[in-house]
């Protein structure tokens, strides 16, 4: 269980705003969430990763007080999801990829609407309005119809609406799916600002480049947590098979040759290069040089490259025997 501590934040319990203990959720005979435990510290940007159907959404719905667990406990913002689900809901914010804004309302009207939903008084809404508009960079656009905004701006507005009641935790479900890179970068700057002010950010994402923005990550697969740590730690601890980048002439022909070799685990074309995953770096480099020189194909270079989080993710879930050991 040496990796287990990775799932716990290193803060004292009092500073943890999410504490999950042996949580399970069954739907009939199907176990969607299987005895998971972890904690999230105040102000942390926490990334919750998993493929479709891994148990991500079920876990979030439990943490948001929308679904009760079959067994185990979860304390969110100081309240128990089993007995105080209604209180949990008042202390959290939620934003999904479909950001539920009203397209035919203006920016201002959407903010007022969400303020009302979260039970804020008019005076409170007025006060928060200025803050949200400034924080999201929407000053001057208050009276524009939401449907006229570009996706990136809608997304910022949705985040503003999700935090109007100053929640301690905000859950972001696939927040930047399909937005352009500049908007994505700006959006994460905004998230960083919230986190600096002490708001805890709980993000689920498919997109592993985005996971690089998180302080700590946890990977769920078939309802169980199979890995956790900072992005850097994940790349170090869960070492994948070496990945080599090959620059050579006739890349497609070389790809075809290498695909037939039993020591090549995976191969694909990557721009004008080839990326191949192999069992052993030195063995592979030697064999590549030999094969190419026999075929008189010019080899420019073979380099080992750092695996990305996506490589780590895929190697972890494609090795069930390894995840069972954890």
């Amino acid at each position, binding site marked *: 269980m040496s990796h287990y501590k990775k799932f716990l934040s290193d803060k004292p319990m009092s500073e943890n705003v999410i504490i999950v203990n042996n949580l399970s959720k069954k739907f009939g005979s199907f176990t969607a969430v299987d005895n998971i435990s972890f904690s999230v510290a105040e102000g942390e940007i926490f990334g919750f990763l998993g493929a479709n159907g891994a148990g991500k959404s079920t876990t979030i719905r439990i943490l948001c007080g929308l679904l009760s667990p079959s067994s185990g406990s979860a304390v969110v913002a100081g309240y128990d999801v089993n007995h105080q689900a209604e209180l949990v809901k008042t202390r959290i914010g939620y934003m999904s990829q479909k950001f539920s804004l009203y397209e035919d309302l203006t920016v201002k009207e959407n903010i007022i609407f969400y303020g009302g939903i979260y039970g804020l008084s008019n005076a409170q809404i007025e006060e928060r309005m200025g803050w949200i508009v400034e924080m999201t960079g929407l000053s001057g656009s208050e009276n524009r119809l939401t449907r006229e905004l570009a996706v990136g701006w809608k997304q910022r507005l949705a985040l503003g609406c999700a935090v109007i009641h100053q929640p301690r935790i905000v859950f972001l479900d696939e927040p930047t799916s399909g937005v352009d890179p500049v908007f994505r970068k700006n959006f994460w700057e905004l998230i*960083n600002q919230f986190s600096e002010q002490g708001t805890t950010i709980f993000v689920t994402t498919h997109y592993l480049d985005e996971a690089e923005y998180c302080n700590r990550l946890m990977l769920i697969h078939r309802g169980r947590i199979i890995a956790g740590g*900072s*992005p850097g730690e994940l790349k170090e601890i869960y070492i994948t098979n070496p990945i080599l980048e090959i620059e050579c002439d006739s890349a497609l022909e070389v790809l075809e040759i290498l695909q037939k070799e039993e020591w090549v685990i995976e191969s694909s074309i990557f*721009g004008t290069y080839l990326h191949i995953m192999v069992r052993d770096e030195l063995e592979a480099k030697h064999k590549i040089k030999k094969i190419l020189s026999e075929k008189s194909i010019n080899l420019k270079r073979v380099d080992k490259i750092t695996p990305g989080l996506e490589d780590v993710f895929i190697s972890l879930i494609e090795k069930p025997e390894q995840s069972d050991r954890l």
Partner: protein
Amino acid sequence: MPEVIIEVQGLKKSFGEVSAVRGLDLTIFQGEMFGIIGPDGAGKTTLIRLLCGVLEPDEGSGRILGYDLIKEIKEIKSSIGYFSQRFSLYGDLTVDENIEFFAEIHEVSDYQPRRERLLEFTRLKPFRERLAEKLSGGMRQKLALACSLVHTPKIIFLDEPTTGVDPVSRRDFWKILSELVQEGIAIVLTTPYLDEAERCTRVGFMNQGKFMAIDSPRKIKNFIEDKVIELVPDEIRRAYKLLKQVPEIKELQALGDKLNLLVKDEQEVMPRIYQSLEKEGLKIKSWRVITPSLENVFVALQKIS
């Protein structure tokens, strides 16, 4: 020199007051995987639709696979494949039936062998009897790809093919694209994900209806003259705040456990960085100059436009 398969000049398209594509030239060769990147509203989708013959340009001319872009649209449509987020599969038809349906649309009479091949290729064979609406997102997307390949096109146009798809399906999808390239099919795609653009033979950065730069992912990075430093401090939040005050840092980005800095000259700025962090008792665990990412290029190109 590989054969030119797409060649357009002075392409323009407006929708009312909005000009989406403003005089654009593009040449794409046989065997390429060409990635179109750019901010939302840059005109990427409009361009793809113009090249597919789905939209008619207001001005400009071109040839796709030798066919005239204006006069021979029917020929173009029958020799290319087009796949977008809105690709409509029929939910109440099975996998097999969907492919059959698209074969009929494209007037492919003897479609069975092709279908077997496509099912093999997309690894959908075990699911051939399943209704499309019962497929997972990743499988639906692979089926849509199979349907757009049923008439054996020579070029396939993909508009944001992997948006909202999980990493495993995404990887699988790229494996399939790589196999298509091996078969000699050219691929033209748009993507908001710059790590995907890294996989292309050439990338075109589009903004306000025009290409601002077209080159291989490696060469397009030469556009950035500044250096990118990856720095791991012991306390990331405090370090971020302190470094925000250093004027020599042109851009500062906080990732989960490291900072990325854009600077003119690392030799010059590193002493300054050490000084400002150490003064406050912070330590630098490690730092190194890294290759700029396409994201750095993207941000820089957008700034000048």
